[in-house]
């Protein structure tokens, strides 16, 4: 130990160390604690939320339709496909690897769904399920070649990027485009909106569950004599969650209601966040991303973790591909192609997941997706074309990566990892 501290005190009193700066329970104490963490480079989601406000403000000044419920509702559905791909990319980034194949896998899954449903007359739900299984298998192939053979993930998934796009073109055949019916389960995915009551109940349940579990967990910690969050902090955190959730539902309800597609996306993000933070599996993913050799020596099956993460990434991309099909009622040669891959990776990084591995959160997909969605939606309203969108997206991405690198250095200087 650098600072020698002779353990004279024994028992429960030892738990608290005089060197530890503890936030007092007052709002002022919470605020100063938050500012201190920000300064030492623990930026978390703050930059992306600030960015989101700035973007919204700029576009709203240029065109007040931007913040209209209709535009915001459309925006939430537009970001779902890329957002799902982005959730998968985040898992891979947490390992410190990259998956370049997510766009092609999304495309090939869209085609598998459509071919099975339209040309082979399968039940549409069965076709979607089959496509998701295909996506998972693709991920297992990528992961196995990477983990067992030791080919760099960059190269494996680059081959996947090219190969699965080829498979997509092959399956589409000469037609190039296959349409799906408007009124099947596939179409309903992005056309269904819930009545206001359901939206409100889901939002209220989310807030109540969060507050309840947080309060329960913290009171158990306090009872066990461990440092716990004060009631003021729990209330503040609950409010920070309640405002965007209830506000979002209110906005969506003033148009058509909460879209099913967006609810699926948010649900998946929440589940992934809980898996990453609360389960042994999530802990293993972070451990492999932080120090694979340490994880291996701790008895973690590193190969299994890697293969499963690549499988999850491909599965989520497959779901994203189905969402692409649902939104355009068709699959064609460019489904999942074009800028989808780059946007998925950019969203993950803009959302705050580190490219250096072992640091990030599932919410990056939601936040990053909203940033990119807001930019393209705003520029569409201003009738700008892709050229401007690409340039602005590039700047936002660069700012996000610079923030990542700078905060990484700042964390080093403040000894926060």
């Amino acid at each position, binding site marked *: *130990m*650098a*600072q*020698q*501290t*002779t*353990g004279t005190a*024994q*028992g429960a009193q*030892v*738990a608290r*160390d005089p*060197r*530890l700066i503890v936030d007092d329970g007052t709002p002022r104490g919470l605020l100063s604690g938050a500012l201190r963490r920000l300064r030492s480079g623990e930026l978390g989601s703050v930059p992306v939320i600030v960015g989101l406000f700035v973007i919204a403000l700029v576009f709203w000044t240029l065109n007040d339709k931007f913040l209209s419920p209709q535009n915001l509702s459309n925006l939430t559905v537009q970001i779902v496909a890329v957002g799902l791909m982005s959730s998968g990319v985040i898992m891979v980034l947490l390992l410190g690897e990259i998956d370049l194949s997510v766009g092609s896998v999304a495309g090939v899954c869209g085609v598998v769904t459509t071919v099975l449903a339209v040309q082979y007359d399968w039940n549409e739900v069965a076709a979607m399920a089959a496509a998701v299984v295909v996506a998972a298998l693709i991920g297992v192939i990528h992961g196995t070649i990477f983990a067992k053979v030791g080919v760099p993930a960059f190269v494996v998934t680059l081959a996947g990027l090219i190969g699965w796009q080829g498979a997509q073109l092959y399956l589409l055949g000469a037609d190039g485009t296959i349409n799906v019916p408007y009124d099947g389960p596939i179409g309903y995915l992005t056309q269904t909106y819930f009545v206001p009551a359901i939206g409100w109940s889901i939002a209220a349940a989310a807030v109540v569950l969060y507050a309840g579990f947080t309060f329960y*967990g913290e009171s*158990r*910690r306090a009872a*066990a*004599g*461990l*440092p716990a969050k004060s009631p003021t902090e729990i209330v503040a955190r609950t409010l920070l969650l309640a405002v965007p959730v209830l506000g979002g539902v209110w906005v969506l309800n003033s148009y058509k209601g909460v879209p099913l597609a967006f609810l699926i996306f948010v649900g998946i993000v929440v589940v992934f966040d809980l898996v990453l933070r*609360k*389960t*042994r599996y999530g*802990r293993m993913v*972070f*451990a492999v*991303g*932080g*120090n694979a*050799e*340490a*994880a*291996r*020596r*701790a*008895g*973690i*099956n590193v190969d299994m973790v890697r293969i499963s993460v690549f499988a999850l990434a491909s599965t989520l991309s497959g779901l994203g591909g189905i969402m692409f099909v649902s939104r355009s009622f068709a699959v064609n040669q460019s489904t999942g192609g074009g800028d989808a891959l780059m946007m998925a990776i950019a969203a993950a990084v803009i959302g705050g997941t580190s490219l250096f591995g*072992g*640091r990030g959160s599932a919410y990056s997909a939601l936040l990053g997706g909203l940033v990119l969605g807001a930019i393209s939606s705003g520029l569409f309203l201003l009738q700008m074309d892709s050229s401007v969108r690409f340039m602005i997206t590039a700047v936002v991405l660069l700012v996000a990566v610079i923030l990542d690198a700078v905060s990484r250095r700042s*964390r*080093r200087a*403040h*000894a*926060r*990892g």
Partner: protein
Amino acid sequence: MTQPILELSGISKRFGAVQALSDVHFHVHPGEVVALLGDNGAGKSTLVKVIAGVNPADSGVILWEGRPVKVNRPSDAQQLGIATIYQDLALCDNLDIVANLFLGSERTAVGVLDELEMERRAQELLDSLSVRIPSLRVPVASLSGGQRQIIAIARSLLGDPKVVMLDEPTAALGVAQTAQVLDLIERLRDQGLGVILISHNMADVRAVADRAVVLRLGRNAGDFRIEDTSYEEIVAAITGAADNPVSRRSGRAAVPGTEEA
């Protein structure tokens, strides 16, 4: 003495054209500290990796409490009750202290990580080792070298091991911290654990070890009881000759003024 808890015989390991270990024998009893000594490249690390299951041996027998066992993976060794603390500590810098302590053996309740139980046990454990760290929820990257060593040793004790293997545990530590670690090693021995201590520091070895096993160029080069062996004998075994730089030097120091002769 009682039956060895861990016994290796005829262990051989090859890396390409290099015979890293050939026909090595090694054993440790419960409640015994065995120092594993050897010059650089003598095969100490390779033997450690064989015992820990990181690099299984090509041939040879491993007996655990007298029964032959296979140790092909780190988890095999862990399940037997062999804990290894490596020189490079093998901690995950991005995880906090509690997460590192329980890495690979997390406690769960209804399928969810039981952070409360883990933090409580971590606090108890560190208190029992008289270690004070301000917060158990800071990433390990923020700790000093000595603190990281303590965390690494503490981690190995959570699994209730029967054999603890320490690779150069005091190499990066100051005087007081070294004494703390040596105390800890003696406490482990008194609890009836077998301790394997890999060290270059002869003072540490003489202070806590009961026996010293010397490897030289991948072969056994001696097995000494520390209390009836002189420093020179052990050094001779490590270097492979009675006439070695260390004993020449100590000879000169013992009779000052004879260097010119």
